[in-house]
């Protein structure tokens, strides 16, 4: 956003005042702040999770280790898996992740959450009417499919391992990773196959 001090909202001014005071007091440097931001802009995001998913799809042993303990993401050079729990969606079992109390989210694999994940609507509704929520996301599950909602109330973080879509047998791990969406790893969507010509993945 273009910087216009005349238009600077009060929240921006308060943040600037805090940064300025904390720099003076030696708690941080402007460079450290810049660096932290660009680190997330650069390489966190849902790409890491997509790599994990693709690996689990092509390597059954890795998938077993991953479902056993999220720390297996270290095999892909990813850190922070000690508190990660990966849950697997199947044709009969559907998992969905929420944080009703605040906004807990698996940053280590998915980066920062989208605003809807932090919205009051999602936080309030996912635990009491998960099928209605999934319907709003365009996902209508069969009545027979069990729905498991994970409310992240501690430092455990949940990532959904979505179902591998049909028609992807020939794809490479890198090509598979490109199919995996953030929403599928939260559990509000399925992964569409490469022939799918619907809505662009979010």
């Amino acid at each position, binding site marked *: *956003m273009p910087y216009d001090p005349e238009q600077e*909202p009060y*929240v*921006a*001014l*308060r*943040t*600037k*005042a*805090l*940064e300025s*005071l*904390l*720099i*003076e*007091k*030696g*708690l*941080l*440097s*402007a460079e*450290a*702040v*810049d660096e*932290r*931001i660009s680190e997330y802009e650069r390489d966190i*995001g849902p790409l890491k999770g997509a790599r994990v998913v693709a690996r689990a799809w092509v390597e059954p042993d890795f998938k077993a280790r991953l479902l056993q303990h999220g720390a297996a993401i270290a095999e892909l050079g990813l850190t922070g898996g000690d*508190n990660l*729990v990966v849950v697997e969606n199947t044709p009969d079992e559907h998992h969905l992740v929420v944080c*009703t*109390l*605040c906004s807990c989210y698996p940053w280590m694999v998915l980066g920062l959450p*989208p*605003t809807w994940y932090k*919205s*009051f*609507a*999602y*936080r*309030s*509704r996912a*635990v*009491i009417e*998960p*099928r209605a*929520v999934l319907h*709003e996301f365009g996902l209508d599950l069969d*009545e*027979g*499919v069990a*729905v*498991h*909602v*994970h*409310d992240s*109330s*501690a*430092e*455990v973080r949940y990532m959904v391992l979505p179902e591998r879509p049909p028609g992807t047998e020939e794809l490479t791990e890198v090509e598979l990773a490109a199919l995996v969406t953030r929403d599928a790893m939260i559990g509000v969507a399925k992964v569409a196959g490469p022939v799918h010509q619907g809505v662009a993945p*979010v």
Partner: protein
Amino acid sequence: MNGVHDMGGMHGFGPIVREVNEPLFHADWEARLWAIDRIVLQQGYFTIDAHRYGIERMEPAHYLRASYYERWLASFEYNLIHEGILTDDELRARIEFLRRHPDSATRQDAIPAPPAPREHPQSPPPAPRFAVGDSVVARNIHPVGHTRLPRYARGKHGTIHRLHGSHIFPDTNAHGLGENPQPLYIVRFEARELWGDSAGPREAVYLDLWDSYLEPARS
């Protein structure tokens, strides 16, 4: 605390609104606040639990009308002042100064080493009282301070689904009363136990709950 932040099962918040091609941050100040908060947190000036409590203690109407990062801002200011890192007067004066001199550069002092991490006298975490498959009841507690036991699960029966090591106890840690780690469990609750007959028969909610939140179910 029984606050508006404890939203699980609430009605009235409308449909879930999604933003197409959402940016990582919606304004520069959000990105800077996010980074500053993380840096200060990681240095141990206050805890993630205090960060959360700082949001929960917002005046309820303010909580509901504030944006996500406005809630972070409210908590960050509260915790910095609460911990004696800043004073309210200092902050107000700096805001006023920056309002009048928007282009002033911040004086970059030499950065001292961060303070030694706080030492909390710590006993070893107790052994888990429950095993996978055990029937438990989430306690009916209503603490005025921070807690991670949502209201919708209190008094409800569940099953130990998984053990997840020992974790710092947020109910004390948020208030500077020690880390007091406890065994943490993933507890499965049938949706009908939580919400009654209107919930589907094949739905369950899982919560990550500390040992002292739970009691053995009377059989």
